[in-house]
């Protein structure tokens, strides 16, 4: 099958099996291996990318269903030489140990900032119509990203720090 995606601002034509997930297209088809495959079942969040600006598990997307869609991966938000503010905050806070979940954590947190800006509520928001932004909110909103090394306190710190910079 043929599908056209805009990945990190570039139009990419991919030829793929109907069964291929967006995660496999990114990694195997396009060589963008920053996006990680953890569980491949939507439980760990390592494969998180932005799809038309919203965070999704790319392992639970069929590429064939996303013709014309825009995808942003970890490769699209910074480079090793020019890290963005959130990436720098993860480095400064030591927000990882092995690093495998980090691209997913960072893409997830990138979307989190946009969601908070739009006033989207979470399960822990005391007032659904006026959500706040505190540590409990960060923890709840990041619960779709697991860290097997359990660097959670530093991940939350990095997100809070980056939020303050913004």
């Amino acid at each position, binding site marked *: *099958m043929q599908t056209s995606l805009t990945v990190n601002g570039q139009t990419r034509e991919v030829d793929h099996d*109907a*069964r291929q*997930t967006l995660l496999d297209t990114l990694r195997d088809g396009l060589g963008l291996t920053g996006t990680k495959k953890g569980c*491949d*079942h*939507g439980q760990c*969040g390592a494969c*998180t990318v932005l*799809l038309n600006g*919203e*965070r*999704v*598990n790319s392992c*639970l*997307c*069929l590429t*064939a*269903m996303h013709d014309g869609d825009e995808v942003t991966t970890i490769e699209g938000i910074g480079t090793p030489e020019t890290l963005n503010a959130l990436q720098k905050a993860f480095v400064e806070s030591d927000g990882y140990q092995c690093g495998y979940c980090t691209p997913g954590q960072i893409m*997830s947190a990138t*979307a*989190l900032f946009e*969601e908070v800006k*739009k*006033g*989207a*509520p*979470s*399960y*822990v*928001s*005391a007032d*659904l*119509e006026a959500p706040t932004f505190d540590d409990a909110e960060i*923890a*709840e*909103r990041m*619960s*779709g*990203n697991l860290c097997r090394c359990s660097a959670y306190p530093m991940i939350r710190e990095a997100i809070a720090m980056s939020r303050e910079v913004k």
Partner: protein
Amino acid sequence: MRSFDFHQSGEIGDAAGALGREAAIIAGGTNLLDLMKIQVMTPERLVDITRLDGLSAIEADGENLRIGALVTNTHLAGDSRIRAGWPLLSRAILAGASAQIRNKATTGGNLLQRTRCPYFYDTSQACNKRAPGTGCAAQGGAGRMLALFGTSPDCLAAHPSDMATALTALQASVEIRAASGEIRTVPMHEFYRGPGDSPDIETVLAPDDIVTAVLLPAPRAGTKQTYRKVRDRASYAFALVSVAAIVKVEDGRIAEASLAYGSIAPHPWMNHAVEEMLVGQAPSDDLFARAGEALTAAPAPHPDTEYKRPLLRRTLIAALREATGLSESAHGVDTARIPA
């Protein structure tokens, strides 16, 4: 994943024509693709309905709302009208899954999600829901996530949806388009079938029916709404038990009560005898304890779910205490603010 024929529809009649016993509709895909990867579901054809027009909006119909089947969980939970008038629905949706999954999962798909029974997921085990006629490995197996009520000897599985539990308490209906083009609406409490001797058939849907919307009746003025979910971890876990409560107290007495219970039956559970005990009475711990006893009078069908009986009683009591103002209005209790 087994091979399948991929059919993307631009028109609902075409989508219906492509459906049948061996086909599956795909929208968000968050449950279906997972099950296809482990070959619990092996459709020969996938019918992608995400490009169909008219299924992605939340529209006002008088004081009611029509929620298109393709409206995502995130969109629905965040809609300003829902937050103000039906906060129970926002809370329940936000209690489920993760942000990533809620961004993809749809209203129709959430209703039709499959059970999380471990034997349904394990293709080496007997499961009448996955493979009719093979038996039920949960009988005599391990199963603390199984159902308490409404089971049959052929299936003990529970329905895991938070959203569907809230919609049941809110007395919503499901709008369905038949292959003929005819539209019908089915109340939530009639949408699901008990397992009986065919637990593979979970709803009243025919293979070529398409869920097109959920219809939400006008919010009840002056009600307090709460969704209490008990689970093994604080976030991103299925409920062990949940209670959706909509209660109105007037002149010191309970004037209205609508309750639904999640993760304890093959579908969102209701028990009108409990509401009847409550209405007309002054809120009290004694009253709520009796309501809890009435709700959980039947024995558990599996020893591993016996713990759910006291857990459900306590969860109901806590929800009623909050929703009637007997205890401090805790986090997660919202008053319906009817939009102007």
